């Protein structure tokens, strides 16, 4: 694949094309957008496979440096954000085309990679003052964070609780499909594990909560790891100045680009926050996080100017679409329902956002794989698909929405 542009640039160019096709005379050209979506898929596949290869290498290095028990903690720690089993993860993320080899690695391997990805994000958060919320939530929820993703956000975020639980300490357990429409109360360890992600109060948060073992080693382990590379997914969000007075650390936070108004909205989905705080005192709760969590769909808004487009485009999500294998269960209902569930008191922007209909919805299946092996996968349920989408967009990309 000889190309002068790297995958990221291709992705941003493709998104720009899709965006501009909305305003072109004659309406949206289905053919051209379909072709662009194929390029998006190809670029995303390459990007992800490169990322994971890199992360795997890094993880190998880290594993040599760290004591073994930390490893386990890492897995448990990062588990909430990695609900998918390898079977779900592999073909979707790395599937299609010539990435067959990437599908082979064991689930543990991939989870390690994902875990490393989260660590990278966390490290990056250390480096960049803007709090990015729980890395797990950010990682999983962030990809949902495009304008279009706002509809997916609740779905993906919704996975956190139900899948966080079964995965506690069992990172290899396959994704639990269950519809889980509402956040389940997490076992005490979970919130504690989540809290330390806040770069500002890692220690304080972990103190009052149980399994103390989980949090501090994870937090402690992070700094010694190699510094997050500039290409880590977290960097995409570096350009967004999230207001620091937001106690966003314990909530999943996604950034949404509204292509109609060009408003960038950082949306906070607070149910995780709620769960986090539900279990114990979490100092982060008292830090001005808006409300008890659930209601705060409002986020900071930053007017997006054309001049910033270059920057913005780097962060636009390639991703997303098409997490659904052809003939799979309807994905859209999952997204929309959850959005309603979790953001009842939507911010004024939500009406704008909810007016936007993703042209790809759950995407063309062409984005998933050229010859999807839907027969090999269990019948996808809504929750499962949301997880796939989250993982598909790992890298905290914001997503562009196109109205049809």
């Amino acid at each position, binding site marked *: 694949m000889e190309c002068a542009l790297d995958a990221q640039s291709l992705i941003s160019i493709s998104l720009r094309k899709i965006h501009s096709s909305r305003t072109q005379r004659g309406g949206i050209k289905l053919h051209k957008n379909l072709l662009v979506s194929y*390029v998006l898929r190809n670029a995303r596949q390459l990007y992800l496979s490169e990322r994971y290869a890199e992360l795997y290498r890094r993880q190998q290095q880290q594993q040599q440096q760290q004591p073994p028990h930390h490893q386990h903690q890492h897995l448990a720690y990062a588990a909430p954000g990695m609900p998918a089993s390898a079977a779900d993860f592999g073909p979707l993320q790395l599937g299609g085309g010539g990435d067959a080899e990437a599908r082979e690695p064991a689930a543990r391997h991939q989870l390690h990679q994902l875990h490393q990805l989260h660590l990278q994000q966390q490290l990056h958060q250390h480096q960049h003052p803007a709090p990015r919320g729980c890395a797990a939530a950010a990682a999983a929820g962030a990809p949902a964070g495009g304008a279009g993703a706002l509809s997916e956000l609740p779905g993906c975020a919704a996975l956190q609780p139900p899948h966080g639980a079964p995965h506690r300490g069992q990172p290899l357990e396959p994704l639990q499909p269950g519809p889980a429409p509402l956040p389940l109360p997490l076992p005490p360890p979970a919130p504690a594990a989540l809290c330390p992600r806040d770069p500002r109060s890692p220690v304080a948060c972990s103190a009052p909560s149980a399994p103390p073992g989980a949090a501090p080693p994870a937090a402690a382990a992070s700094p010694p790891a190699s510094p997050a590379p500039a290409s880590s997914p977290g960097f995409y969000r570096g350009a967004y100045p999230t207001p620091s007075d937001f106690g966003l650390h314990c909530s999943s936070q996604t950034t949404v680009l509204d292509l109609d108004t060009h408003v960038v909205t950082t949306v906070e989905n607070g149910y995780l926050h709620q769960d986090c705080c539900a279990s114990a005192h979490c100092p982060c709760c008292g830090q001005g996080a808006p409300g008890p969590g659930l209601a705060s769909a409002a986020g900071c808004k930053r007017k997006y100017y054309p001049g910033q487009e270059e920057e913005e485009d780097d962060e636009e999500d390639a991703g997303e679409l098409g997490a659904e294998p052809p003939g799979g269960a309807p994905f859209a209902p999952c997204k929309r329902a959850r959005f309603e569930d979790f953001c009842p008191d939507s911010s004024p922007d939500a009406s704008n956002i909810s007016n936007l209909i993703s042209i790809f919805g759950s995407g063309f299946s062409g984005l998933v794989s050229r010859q999807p092996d839907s027969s090999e996968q269990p019948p996808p349920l809504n929750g499962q698909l949301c997880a796939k989408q989250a993982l598909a967009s790992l890298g905290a990309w914001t997503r562009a929405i196109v109205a049809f």
Partner: protein
Amino acid sequence: MFPKLSLRSMFHGAGGGNDIQWCFSQVKGAVDDDVAEADIISTVEFNHSGELLATGDKGGRVVIFQQEQENKIQSHSRGEYNVYSTFQSHEPEFDYLKSLEIEEKINKIRWLPQKNAAQFLLSTNDKTIKLWKISERDKRPEGYNLKEEDGRYRDPTTVTTLRVPVFRPMDLMVEASPRRIFANAHTYHINSISINSDYETYLSADDLRINLWHLEITDRSFNIVDIKPANMEELTEVITAAEFHPNSCNTFVYSSSKGTIRLCDMRASALCDRHSKLFEEPEDPSNRSFFSEIISSISDVKFSHSGRYMMTRDYLSVKIWDLNMENRPVETYQVHEYLRSKLCSLYENDCIFDKFECCWNGSDSVVMTGSYNNFFRMFDRNTKRDITLEASRENNKPRTVLKPRKVCASGKRKKDEISVDSLDFNKKILHTAWHPKENIIAVATTNNLYIFQDKVN
């Protein structure tokens, strides 16, 4: 002893695209470099006799050129094409329900075979197909009893004798009138129309559906192909072109964005979702790139006049398929393989989405298609030779033989060669047409129409 063959007939016998020397004949259109968008030519089509040449543009206009009757004495050149009729075929529309603007650009023109004195053609934009009647008027009635020549009524008291009007010759007037309007049958953008060999029906194809119409009936059409998935999120391919078989009125083909062609038989079922034949060439894995899907999308499909073969055009090549062999084309011609390493920048500037058309000559021995830098290419199927020519005003002396061009892909550039990097990608030839009987070709650059003919002795 031996009959003296003229050069011309020798060349015609060989049918070789390269043995022919192509000469500049005419160029139509504005000279200035500043191209008005409405003047961009969007389709070119000869009628069945070749006497008429129609062009459609982005502004919704149709311009028809007519060939002068060949001057038998001056046989050194064929008749020139001069403007015969100009009319506004389509206007921009607005779909209020969907808040969509509908472009007036003429996507395709197809001529009906001539049945009487008038000519008929179908022209289409994204949503609506129109049947136009082009008729000549060269006589008019004169000498009315009660009216003056200018139409005013005469004072009845001055009428003392009976006068019967008679037809007298007048200056030729060509009128175009819309006879049928076939509307509201396509949700997506129409990309093709094709008239059936029964001359009663025709098909229109958009991205996801193909409809069958009767030329006389405008208020309904039959849907014969529908590839829209139940869930639009599962869409993987769209229809890019469709054409009826030239001889079998039950057979048509449609090409897809995935590089496949499906041949359907309308006798098999009312809805031809299941193809009778599927023409597909396996992808070469060594050529895989980010843009493999884009460059394999077929932009045009044309049956040969014989009906035995069909030709498809994708971004980099022209393929000839034998209808009896589905697993691969019988011939493949590389149009501009040197662009394969430039796909990235072509993607950035949107050129990779250009839809090139292709055409056969009258004897199906040569195929032609366009390229960039106002180059166009011809491939002789018999001699396997190809030639690259340029449509440019620099050679605008009539009967100037066109010089073959060459693009240098890499390495040392020879004299007279053009390097890939100096190609002008804004000058593209998307539409070409070949006279059905003679070696006359019409080549459309952005806003000019070039007519070339072979050198006559």
